[in-house]
């Protein structure tokens, strides 16, 4: 098996996610882009696990998924409460933590 | 080596402090009485320990040693013990505390009218916290002098800043926060340099121990030793304040409440000069000798420079703070002259300066509490109205200018004579400082207590019994030690000699042969 295709796909997904995080304003979209990046990493982890014939990478991928799930719960809750108070889900509007 | 004598001594004020802290706000009176009782118990206990100290020729250098393992991984011990130098400094510190407690009895009680400084914007301040902090400070002070483990010393050295920070920052004058921050940061910078050196010491000596007795003579000579020396030296020079590291002291001394200032200048600063003798000299003999000329010159500059600054001050507490900087010049001179007379004089100077400047801060505080101003121009003629205060003020002032018959003279002269046998020019320059000392003390006295009585001063109340007893014992002690200093000199002497032995120095012998052609 050639890992090249998988890795290229992973890189492409990661790039799309990263660019999305950087350019989009809507918090939900940014959030989904973060998920995309995590899944891109998952893909490479699984690929390398397969190449090396060990299960370490796959276990790592599970970890990432669990963390991502937990993160989704907290992240969405935060986005929800911000949206409720400010009537906006734009990340640029929530700059209360500036200097 | 599990002699608990000193650990008990250290713990008494800590327990007292916790007890006072845990009182309720309204129990201010109980807090004062409790602190006074604790501080007096400590005095009595120290006296008992002091009498058990051996001064004969074959006595151990460190006595009452006790050692318990603390951090196993780095071989850090809670190790305590005192030599003559530490013993007299502990004694001086514990004597000063009850005096400070008595002097600041009503200083934070807005109803008493004896409030020292009415700082704008200050809330009703917690009286019991002040006294608890004093006892906490006493705990650290005794700890820092008795520690014989470098790491433990460092911990006490830094921790001591905390109660003092709060004493200045919460109970001080109008610019208290600025002063407290400056004091804290300045000392902390020095402390961190010292921490680096402490670690360096642990690494370079390879003795895998922090015990001072294990480290003496182990630091390899050369550049490393000089750098390690500098780390310690700068920390101590900031603490002691040696010119040019002195500018935090006038601010801190002026803004701190008088009692706090007495302990700050009287005891905390002594840790710096104590550190020179206990750590710099024995651990880094080569570097000490290498840097000694520079330090001596800085000391002499300090003596003259700070004296001139003191003459030019209008703020009484700043003035007293500057006089201390000048006195620390004398102490530095005595230590780095490397003679028994100089060293012994310097240690005695530390003790005397604690008593005398402590008393001076207290009497200045008592005067300020009456006039509610630190500016000398607001006073004048007070001797007519408050003869007891004037008398005590003059006596403490005279002790500051080292009048013979008072113990300050013995120490100052020992320092000068010890310096003279090695460095004639410097000693002569330093001696001219005694004229300046007379000027700043008597000029201050003239501006505050002599002259025509102003309307404001006419309403002053003389000292009551409590206030008198805050100062009088200190002065009595200064006079007694001035007339008969032998007991305390006998305690200091062996320790100083041991220290000089560590630096490989011995006294120059009097010799007329070299003197042909006059005195250079």
């Amino acid at each position, binding site marked *: 098996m050639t890992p090249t295709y998988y890795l290229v796909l992973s890189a492409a997904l990661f790039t799309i996610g990263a660019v999305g995080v950087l350019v989009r304003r809507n918090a939900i979209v940014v959030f989904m882009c973060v998920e995309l990046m995590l899944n891109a990493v998952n893909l490479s982890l699984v690929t390398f696990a397969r190449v090396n014939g060990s299960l370490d990478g796959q276990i790592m991928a599970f970890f990432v998924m669990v963390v991502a799930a937990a993160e989704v719960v907290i992240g969405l809750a935060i986005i929800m409460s911000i949206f409720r108070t400010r009537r906006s889900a734009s990340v640029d509007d929530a700059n209360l933590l500036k200097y | 080596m599990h002699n608990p004598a000193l650990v008990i001594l250290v713990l008494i004020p800590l327990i007292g402090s916790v007890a006072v802290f845990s009182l309720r706000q309204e129990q201010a009176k109980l807090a004062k009485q409790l602190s006074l009782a604790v501080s007096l118990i400590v005095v009595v206990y120290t006296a008992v320990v002091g009498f058990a100290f051996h001064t004969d020729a074959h006595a151990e250098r460190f006595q009452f040693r006790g050692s318990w393992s603390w951090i196993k991984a780095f071989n850090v011990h809670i190790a305590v013990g005192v030599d003559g130098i530490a013993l007299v400094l502990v004694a001086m510190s514990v004597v000063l505390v009850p005096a400070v407690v008595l002097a600041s009895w009503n200083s934070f009680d807005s109803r008493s009218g004896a409030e020292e400084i009415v700082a704008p914007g200050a809330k009703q301040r917690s009286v019991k916290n002040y006294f608890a902090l004093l006892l906490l400070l006493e705990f650290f002070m005794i700890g820092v002098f008795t520690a014989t483990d470098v790491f433990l010393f460092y911990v006490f050295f830094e921790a001591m800043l905390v109660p003092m920070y709060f004493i200045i920052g919460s109970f001080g004058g109008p610019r208290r926060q600025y002063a407290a921050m400056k004091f804290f940061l300045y000392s902390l910078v020095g402390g961190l340099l010292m921490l680096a050196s402490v670690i360096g010491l642990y690494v370079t000596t390879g003795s895998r121990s922090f015990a001072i007795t294990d480290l003496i003579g182990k630091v390899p000579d050369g550049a490393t030793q000089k750098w390690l020396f500098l780390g310690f030296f700068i920390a101590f020079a900031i603490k002691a304040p040696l010119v040019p590291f002195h*500018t935090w002291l006038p601010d801190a001394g002026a803004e701190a409440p008088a009692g706090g200032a007495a302990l700050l200048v009287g005891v905390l600063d002594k840790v710096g000069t104590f550190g020179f003798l206990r750590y710099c000299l024995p651990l880094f003999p080569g570097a000490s000798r290498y840097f000694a000329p520079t330090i001596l010159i800085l000391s002499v500059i300090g003596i003259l420079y700070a004296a001139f600054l003191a003459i030019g001050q209008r703020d009484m507490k700043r003035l007293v703070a500057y006089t201390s900087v000048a006195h620390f010049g004398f102490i530095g001179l005595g230590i780095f002259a490397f003679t028994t007379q100089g060293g012994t004089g310097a240690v005695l100077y530390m003790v005397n300066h604690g008593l005398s400047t402590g008393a001076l801060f207290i009497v200045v505080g008592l005067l300020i509490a009456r006039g509610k101003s630190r500016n000398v121009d607001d006073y004048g003629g007070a001797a007519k109205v408050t003869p007891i205060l004037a008398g005590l003020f003059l006596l403490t002032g005279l002790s500051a200018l080292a009048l013979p018959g008072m113990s300050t003279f013995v120490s100052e002269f020992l320092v000068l004579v010890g310096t*003279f046998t090695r460095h004639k020019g410097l000693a002569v320059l330093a*001696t001219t400082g005694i004229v300046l000392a007379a000027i700043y003390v008597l000029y201050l006295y003239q501006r505050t207590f002599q002259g025509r009585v102003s309307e404001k001063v006419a309403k002053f109340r003389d000292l009551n019994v409590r206030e008198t007893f805050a100062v009088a014992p200190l002065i009595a002690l200064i006079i007694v030690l001035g007339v008969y*200093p*032998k007991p305390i000199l006998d305690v200091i002497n062996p320790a100083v000699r041991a220290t000089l032995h560590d630096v490989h120095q011995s006294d120059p012998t009097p010799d007329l042969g070299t003197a042909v052609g006059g*005195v250079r």
Partner: protein
Amino acid sequence: MTTAHGIQSAAWLLIALPLLSAGVLLVAGRRADKWAHVVGAAVPVVLFGYAVMLFFSVKGEGNREINLHLYSWIPVAGFKVDAGLLIDPLSMVFVLLITGVGSLIHIYAVGYMAHDEGRRRFFGYFNYFIAVMLLLVLANSYLALYVGWEGVGLASYLLISFYYSRNIAATAGNKAFFANRVGDVGLSIAIMIMFAYVGSTSYADVLYGDTQLTKGVATAIGFMLLLGACGKSGQFPLQTWLPDAMEGPTPVSALIHAATMVTAGVYLIARSAPVFDVSQAARTAVVVVGAITLLYGCVCGCGQDDLKRVLAYSTVSQIGYMFLAVGLGPGVYAIGIIHLVGHGFFKAALFLSAGSVMHAMNDRIDMRRFGGLFRVMPITYGVFVCGYLAIIGFPLATGFWTKDKIIEAALDKGGTSGWVLGVVALAGAGLTAFYMTRALVMTFHGERRWEDDVHPHEASRSMTYPMIALGVLSLVGGYLLIFGGGLQHWLTPSVGPSVEEGVHTVSTLVLTAITLVVVALGVLGGWVAFGRKPVPISQPVGVSPVTTAARRNIYADAFNEMVLQRPGQWLSRALVYFDNRGVDGAVTGLAAGFGGGSARLKRTQTGFVRSYALSMLGGTIAVVAVLLAVRFQ
């Protein structure tokens, strides 16, 4: 050197007793107001009684140098100073002078200070003075002497600024203390030199020890001792404090600033005779200082209108004579000491009568406001005349015996310097006669010039009796001291034998005649200038530059102010500025630098999540790039 025994072992009481009473009087507070003066005056009388017994006890000894070891004072390695007393002929003379004249002046002060609310405080200070002065003369080492030395400085300070509510008195006190401290620097350096080269500070080791001082060391010690002596004794160039010291109560001027303390410098030099014997240079310096001060005091004394100031300048100049004498060296020391004792008598008498005048004139002291007082105050007048005769050296009065001898010794020095010194001393005698005549005439003769609210009267008996005693001593004391060479022989063990009667540059008879003529001229001059025509009530203006200079003490105060005080203040102010802006500026500047830097850096915290994300990405890429670069280089 013998060890003290019997009554001699109690000599420490001479110091302890007055110290104790001073402490009691000062600490007891107003409770003691009623009986303070009784205790205060009784103490020196008791001490005098003891001193007389001590004198006879010492006289009975074969070796009259008695050492009394008290305890080990400062033992530090090689530096060992014992607290101990040396009772020898020299210190005995001083002990008798201090306690004797001291007793009389204490008794006088009981009356003089009767209406002063600070009388208790006064006697406390006065007894303290007696204690430290006795310590000064009895100490057996230079360091112990130094304790007394500074102690009398403190006593002098306290008593000059006794009326501290007046700023002028407070300032005068400070001035005295500062000038004394300058001298003390000299003395303490001298002690340091002694320790550095001899290894001890006791008289026994430094002066009579095994190690012979080298010339260089002796010169250094001598000069430094001289500086100390100049400060204490009001000698040039540290003389300006002494006239100002007259701000204190008159008994103080009499006891401290005339009879005893200011002569401590003479004592110091006489005591250190062996040092000055080694160094000719130091000895010359003493002579020069003495000669300059002698003339200075005389000239200034001529220009003063304040009676006490005239006497103060007279003290300055008389101590100049003593310095001249002790500086002339072996054989003349004793003359100097005898002049000192005689001066103690007559100057005390003069001051006490001046005090009596002041007392009678509501504390006014301007001589232009006196005049014709001899009618209302006959006793005071009589005492003043006794002192007057003694100081101008009227035949057979005290000054006659000693001043002539000093002039003679100066001439005997030989060479040009001998002639110069002799002429200076002679001129001084003439000037002394002039200004004393002026003072006498302006105060007691002529018509009355005082204002109507003043009612002069003779003083109470507690004041007049001591005055009379001192007046009598002024007349006959010199004869008693010099009779049969008594005091000279007595002092021989301490300061060496006196000059043998031998060949003089000018024969004694001729010199006495010349001196008398000069003195007579001075008296005549004073009488012609001030006795024959009325004295104007205000100072005449448009006088010669010499008179102006004399009135302003030859600009010594102006000089000090311009050269020391002003630049000192300026330097102090400049340093305060430098410390605040320079040294502290560097510290606070560093802090401000950090503060400013972090203020700039915090601008990067924009609050925009996406810019944080970008910087994270940038950082990650940078790390990866670095890793790759390292990996594949």
